């Protein structure tokens, strides 16, 4: 793929907007920036979104055996969570807080345990959260041990994806709704047998990160050195979508491949061993759950679960993003690349080629966020101007405000300063 720095000779072949007219309730007005910079709005996100919504913590394959656990520090909910597979095979989640003096019980990020013992005074809990032992127990005054287990958190699993909810109002399946119907049948387990993870903390609002992966308008520009030619081309120079579908909370979107794309020399060789990042294998029937428009030039579907999870599904694997707010201008970004189990070391090489190329591409994506953050609170601009292909950004902003009970984010946020109480989690 030649590096081309000069001005691109691309002309739009578009006839103009076509998606927004299918969702007239979204409107077409500029969208306020304030929710990205307002501390009050951020606190409402904490209480009305992240303490209420189902949140994905990755795949159940992270915990193959009884006793396997990981700890997820969830700054936005001001807690730490232990997720563990019990002796009975069931996966459970608990607040990582001891019943004695509320110290964190488990300090390791992951591992395999038979019990959890608080390092502070040795209180010991089973994998089911029950309190098993208290050192020097006779010296306490009155303890109901059976009521002093780890505080449980609602957990459910959809298609192998682990979700938790700090104060559930509906079941996970109800929450996912119709969005989930079309995806069921995709071989998530087989295509996710191998997982590679990265994480980073960005100095930006979490929604800037979310937005960066919700449109392909940027591909011809930000990715001009990398994947522009695989996702665009003469017939579709601005990577216009093949398909959009908006659900009540969630989203689906299909991206085009360039049928005339010429892979780079090593990429072409890696493809022989089942690589996929930049194009699909048009010689095979795609699995169930992808390419809803049944377009021959399909490359991947982006499936977004409100509020902060995205699954990018390809024929032969998928990528996921978690966008975890830490503070109004700090975000933990977790990226996972999922592949089938490589049948041999050459296929493993192909996966390596795919994932490091992909990593470099998303380093281009990630280049914008802290730059945007550095000027967004200046007040120089008060609104975003979204085009037709930025439909998902408009939808995300509307859904977020509605989920928080705001019909007009700005007015209601202001009022909230006067003691408009938000519900605290029951846990």
């Amino acid at each position, binding site marked *: 793929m030649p590096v081309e720095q000069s001005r691109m000779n691309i002309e739009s072949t578009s006839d103009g907007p076509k998606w927004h007219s299918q969702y007239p309730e979204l409107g077409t007005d500029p969208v306020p920036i304030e929710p990205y910079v307002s501390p009050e709005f951020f606190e409402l996100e904490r209480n009305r979104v992240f303490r209420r919504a189902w949140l994905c913590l990755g795949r159940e394959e992270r915990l193959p055996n009884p006793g396997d656990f990981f700890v997820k520090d969830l700054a936005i909910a001001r807690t730490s969570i232990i997720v563990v597979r019990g002796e009975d095979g069931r996966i459970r989640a608990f607040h990582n807080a001891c019943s004695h003096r509320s110290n964190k019980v488990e300090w390791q990020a992951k591992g395999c345990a038979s019990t959890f013992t608080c390092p502070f005074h040795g209180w010991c809990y089973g994998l089911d959260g029950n309190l098993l032992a208290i050192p020097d127990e006779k010296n306490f005054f009155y303890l109901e041990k059976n009521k002093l287990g780890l505080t449980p958190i609602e957990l459910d699993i959809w298609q192998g994806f682990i979700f938790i909810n700090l104060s559930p109002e509906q079941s996970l399946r109800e929450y996912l709704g119709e969005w989930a119907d079309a995806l069921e049948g995709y071989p998530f387990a087989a295509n996710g047998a191998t997982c*590679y993870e990265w994480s980073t903390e960005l100095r930006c609002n979490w929604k800037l990160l979310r937005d960066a992966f919700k449109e392909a308008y940027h591909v011809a520009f930000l990715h001009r050195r990398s994947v522009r030619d695989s996702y665009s081309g003469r017939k579709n120079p601005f990577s216009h979508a093949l398909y959009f579908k908006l659900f009540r909370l969630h989203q689906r979107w299909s991206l085009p491949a360039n049928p005339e794309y010429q892979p*780079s020399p*090593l990429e072409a060789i890696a493809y022989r061993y089942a690589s996929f990042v930049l194009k699909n294998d048009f010689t095979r029937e795609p699995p169930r759950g992808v390419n809803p428009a049944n377009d021959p030039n399909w490359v991947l579907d982006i499936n977004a679960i409100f509020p902060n999870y995205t699954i990018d599904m390809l024929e032969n694997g998928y990528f996921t993003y978690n966008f975890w707010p830490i503070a109004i201008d700090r975000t933990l970004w977790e990226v996972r690349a999922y592949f089938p189990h490589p049948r041999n070391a050459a296929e493993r090489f192909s996966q390596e080629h795919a994932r490091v190329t992909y990593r470099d591409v998303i380093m281009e994506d990630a280049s914008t966020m802290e730059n945007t953050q550095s000027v967004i609170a200046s007040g120089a601009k008060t609104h975003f101007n979204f085009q037709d292909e930025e439909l998902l950004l408009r939808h995300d902003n509307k859904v977020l405000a509605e989920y928080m009970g705001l019909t007009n984010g700005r007015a209601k946020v202001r009022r909230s300063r006067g003691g408009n109480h938000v519900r605290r989690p029951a846990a």
Partner: protein
Amino acid sequence: MSDVRLPDQFRDLEPLAGLWSLPTEAERHDRRLASNMAELRRLYDALMPRIVDVLAYLSEFQVENLTPEGRNLFYLACSLAEISPAVELFGQPQVPAGYDSRRFIPAEGQ
């Protein structure tokens, strides 16, 4: 000669293996960032003409069943994957104007 051994038919690549047969993404990426383009091209130009043969060899094994020499060859091939965007796309070791990839932390062992 390097003390990093490769399978017999690839022994001519052993001088590269001493530098580039690195077991983790973090090590391979660090080596890429610490190299100049002439050094990256040296790996690319030496390994590209052989990579089809290398992959034919690797396709006979699962990663966990490779011999120590075969494993070194696999790591060397992974380094070619690591540097290929720098050589084929960017013309420089880092992603141009990109996010600082040293802040993008791989999980242990990959």
